[in-house]
């Protein structure tokens, strides 16, 4: 009797009274509503304030189209570059031991903590008219700053760690046993990577790619410094939003912004799907795995 009472008390001790629970839920949800749901809703309402026709009209504008194309182009270059880097960096950091590994991992993370404005500035100092190799570039008629290459470079910088960062802990947790087994059975390095490593890391890879892509398409500060804001030429979507907004073309600004907000929502949906798939795979793997010998 007294045993079951203690147990009940113990169970009750790991949660709170109902009113406390519901108050905490209410406060947390209000916070989420105010800070996340309202801004997201505001984007779409402001975009549709003058009706669907005005909204579509704003998106049909040639400058808006140039901005969309430039944003897609930038992401299409920056994401694959950082993908190749991410896989290479994760391979050497997760699968081997070497001196300076911890320091290298810190350096990979560095772009995350650098202000985007500073990131843009460093490229201006390198390639700008008064920069280190600016005069040489000018003499050879190569434009990097205030042109597309600068925008791509700045985007590559700010999205640099995304994929590496997802893959390193994942590959470290998986160890090297499966790869070693494949090599012993006669697989080449590439075969091992394609048929053993890649299937193991695929969800982490997708996760990193979509987050990297969202940031690449949405980057503002770094791109703003190197772009020069030439309308119809070097404006990405976020920069185009700024220009329209500053010209008091609110509906047009929010119309372009709504596309970026849709991208964000899509990113969150894919991300949730990937997390769900990953958990499912983990569960299946856990069921298949033999019982570990010791705790």
């Amino acid at each position, binding site marked *: 009797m007294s045993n079951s009472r203690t147990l009940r008390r113990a169970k009750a001790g790991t949660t709170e009274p109902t009113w406390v629970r519901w108050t905490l839920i209410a406060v947390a949800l209000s916070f989420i509503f105010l800070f996340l749901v309202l801004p997201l809703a505001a984007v779409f309402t402001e975009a549709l304030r003058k009706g669907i026709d005005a909204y579509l009209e704003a998106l049909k504008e040639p400058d808006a189209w140039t901005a969309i194309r430039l944003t897609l182009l930038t992401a299409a270059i920056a994401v694959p570059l950082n993908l190749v880097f991410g896989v290479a960096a994760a391979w050497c950091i997760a699968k081997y031991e070497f001196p300076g590994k911890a320091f290298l991992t810190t350096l990979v993370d560095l772009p995350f903590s650098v202000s985007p404005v500073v990131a843009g500035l460093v490229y201006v100092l390198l390639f700008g008219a008064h920069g280190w190799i600016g005069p040489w570039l000018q003499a050879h008629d190569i434009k990097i700053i205030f042109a597309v290459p600068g925008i791509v470079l700045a985007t590559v910088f700010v999205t640099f760690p995304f994929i590496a960062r997802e893959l390193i802990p994942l590959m470290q947790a998986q160890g090297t046993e499966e790869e070693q087994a494949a090599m012993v059975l006669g697989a080449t390095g590439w075969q091992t990577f394609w048929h053993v490593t890649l299937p193991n890391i695929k969800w982490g890879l997708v996760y990193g790619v979509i987050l990297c892509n969202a940031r690449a398409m949405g980057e*503002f500060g770094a791109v703003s410094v190197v772009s020069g804001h030439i309308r119809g030429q070097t404006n990405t979507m976020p920069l185009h939003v700024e220009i329209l907004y500053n010209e008091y073309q609110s509906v047009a600004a929010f119309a372009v912004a709504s596309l970026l907000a849709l991208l964000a929502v899509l990113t969150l949906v894919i991300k949730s799907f990937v997390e769900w798939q990953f958990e499912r795979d983990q569960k299946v793997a856990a069921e298949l795995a033999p019982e570990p010998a010791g705790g």
Partner: protein
Amino acid sequence: MTAAILSTLPGAATGTVRKRPTRHVLPGFNITLGFTLFYLSLIVLIPLSALVFKTFTLTWEQFWVAVASPRVVASYQLTFGASFIAALVNVVFGLLVAWVLVRYPFPGKKIIDALVDLPFALPTAVAGIALTALLADNGWVGQLLVPFDIKLAFNRNGIVIALIFIGLPFVVRTVQPVLEDAEKELEEAATCLGASRWQTFRYVVFPSIAPALLTGFAMAFARAVGEYGSVIFIAGNMPMVSEITPLIIIGKLEQYDYAGATAVAVVMLGFSFTLLLVINALQAWQRRRSGAQS
């Protein structure tokens, strides 16, 4: 730190005996490390060193004038002050949101959980204009506050709000996994020994999530200090009053004051690097803490 990572790997117990063959069996070490170092140097290290070398072309006096003029100092105070307040708010509400998501069942939980990452996915410029539209005098929230004479847009309040938005996921996402792994048996034991629910939280739960909370705080703070896109729309950008440090750099650049912009940027870069090391140390502490518990 390396030791902490190693101890989580399977077969770590056998230690050095296993490490040696690993290096020889798996191919590709030289090429992947080589490419990593090459790409890292090209994209990150060489450009950042350009920044540092540019500062060396300044005399000490020029540097000091650039980084310590009253307008710049006012911007540091604002940037660090607002980031600190925002990160603090995020610690409180981030813990609350993480707690509710891990401990209580309620309808729509999965959607809320996914929504927490919105600030990572939503471009900062979009966040900036959306928050401004909400908080301006004719906005949904702003018009409710007009009778009380509270203004949240185009002043320092707006900056703090934008920075809370930007830093929101950091604390939730660092605390959430720790709460999920926490062993309920410990709390049950505390209750059986006569602890009240509050005492259990204060002395059993809180110490185990404290490192994660601190890490989340540092990450939110670091992100807020460098933030530009969301802030400039809502700040009003008055010199000495609501002008953040990244905007000072942009302003100097637009006046072709490259040296001045560089000097301020170096100060920010030094700060970012310090914070990065602090966050690394905090994470190592957290790993040791959770390693010791299990």
